[in-house]
């Protein structure tokens, strides 16, 4: 999904390559890019499931307005991943309602 050779933009400013954790798996991304971009580059489409119907949601506006891309980041829920920069070893979890999977299963 990363654009290798763009006709107009000769280089996309990126930080160094870092590892982060997504639902227990180790993924790679660029430091400082939005978490949502790093996830999409790894093929992750679903960021959360709605609380009442469990419907999947992902990136929609990509500028921090719609909140569809909210996830649990380093234990904190409702983080808009499209405007939150990726850091090394960040722990990103799919959000179920407002909880993570483990918390949902224990209810």
């Amino acid at each position, binding site marked *: 999904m990363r654009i290798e050779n763009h006709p107009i933009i000769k280089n996309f400013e990126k930080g160094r390559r870092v590892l982060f954790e997504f639902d227990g798996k180790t993924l790679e991304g660029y430091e400082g890019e939005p978490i949502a971009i790093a996830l999409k580059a790894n093929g992750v489409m679903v960021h959360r499931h709605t609380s009442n119907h469990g419907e999947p949601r992902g*990136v929609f506006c990509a500028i921090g307005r719609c909140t569809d891309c909210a996830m649990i980041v380093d234990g904190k829920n409702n983080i808009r991943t499209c405007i939150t920069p990726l850091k090394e070893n960040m722990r990103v979890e799919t959000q179920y309602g407002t909880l993570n999977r483990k918390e949902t299963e224990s209810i």
Partner: protein
Amino acid sequence: MKRYELIVIGAGPAGLSAAIEAASHGMPVIVFDENPRPGGQLFKQIHKFFGSKEHRAKERGFRIGRQLLEEARRMGVEVMLQATVLGIYDGKEVSVMRDGQVEHFKANNIIIATGASEKMVPFSGWTLPGVIGAGAAQTMMNLHGLKPGNKVLMVGSGNVGVVVGYQLMQAGCKIEAVIDGAPRVGGYGVHAAKLARLGVPFYLSHTIKEAKGKICVEGATIVKVDSTWQAIPGSEKVLDVDTICIAVGLSPMSQLARTAHCDMENNAGKGGLVSICNEYGETSTPGVYAVGDVAGIEEASSAMIQGKIAGVAVSHSRGYLDTADFNNQVAQHQRSLKQLRQGMFGHREKGQNDPTQTEEGYPLSRTLLERGYLAEEELQNYPGVRFQKGQGVRPVVECTQNIPCNPCQDACKRGCITVSGKITNLPAVDEAVECTGCGMCVVSCPGQAIFLVDDTLAPGYSGVSIPYEFSPLPAEGSKGLALDRSGRVLGEVEVTTVKQSRVMDETAILTMKVPGDWSMKVRSFQPY
């Protein structure tokens, strides 16, 4: 509480222009923006802008963004990022949230330049991951270098839809279709034509019925609508797409103007709820201005001029600019703004009528409006197409709508192309002026609507030169497919020359050797 002469809200094209203007007259200015980077949407605009030289036409949006930031820095404009303005209160007090803390500021003048948000269209499955706004697509691919998807359906044929559609193809995505509920293409015909000649089908009078898929988009069903916008049963079509991109318009983000008690109006021509402003952009609340998309949806070029006018006005009102200079500068900016607002896509005309001819009386192409490309037999109707056999290399200007734009005229040093009278008039080619084939008109046209045709290239063969903005660039001598305006494959051709230089700003000129009778047919190249 910190006090400023001027607070600007929003560091996009309108806000930055206002701040730079005011600061240039000596006003202490601060700009608040909620984003981590300044520039608004300019850094996502990788296409060449329309207009004239004074509107920075034929420059790409992101380069204009860089220039604005540089000017702001030079003028000493203070820009505070990740600073969300929560409200404007009595006495021009502004509350700003940063790092979860609320701070208060006061100003003698406030310029609201918060821009717009995207409109959406709800349909079955519209919340599925893979349904995205056109702005999201631009953010992903043009800022972060990530393809939004592989196979995309574009919903909406306005300028955002067709411009972003082309940018998606530049990023390496395939556009399966552009659809629009309206019976005609909403954006500039030249933008639509860039997609059509790459083989993208336009389905007008079509809307989206459903996004298919369980956990993300796996397809889309579109359906034809009748003249009352009702779906026609049985006309459904299923498209194999993984991404659905929504480009159905913008609405002004005017909430802050309401908190400042500005008189508001619902104005369909301006895209929704806007504050009522005078000629300088001042609202009914004295000292509070609204400029750019928040005052009515237009585009970045007019937003920048509106910003300058408000910047001049606040400078004058606070005594930083004398009345004579104020009058002169406002008059100059308003002339410039008026130019951009002319034509069939202008401010007042938007969506209001369905013209059948240009202002000069040339017939408008129906195929362009209904299918996104010009039919070959329509070409002779236009003053930019004066091609005669045996003349050698000539420009063919396929510009057929009243758009405020004239870089082609400046590009030709010999005066072969003229846009006489209004800036929206169609460019005319002067048959008497010899063409050197330099190609500067080809690369200067923001609509990529100028081609060079040379029917004396070799016996039985013509040279057709086209603007080309895809990667990788074909090599000289390589072969590929020649396509006509509708994207239909005509056959194999050889690329004879590839021109690229710094002044062409990433638009290359590809010259193909084609059979003589294809010279007015071939308008696109697809490498193997």
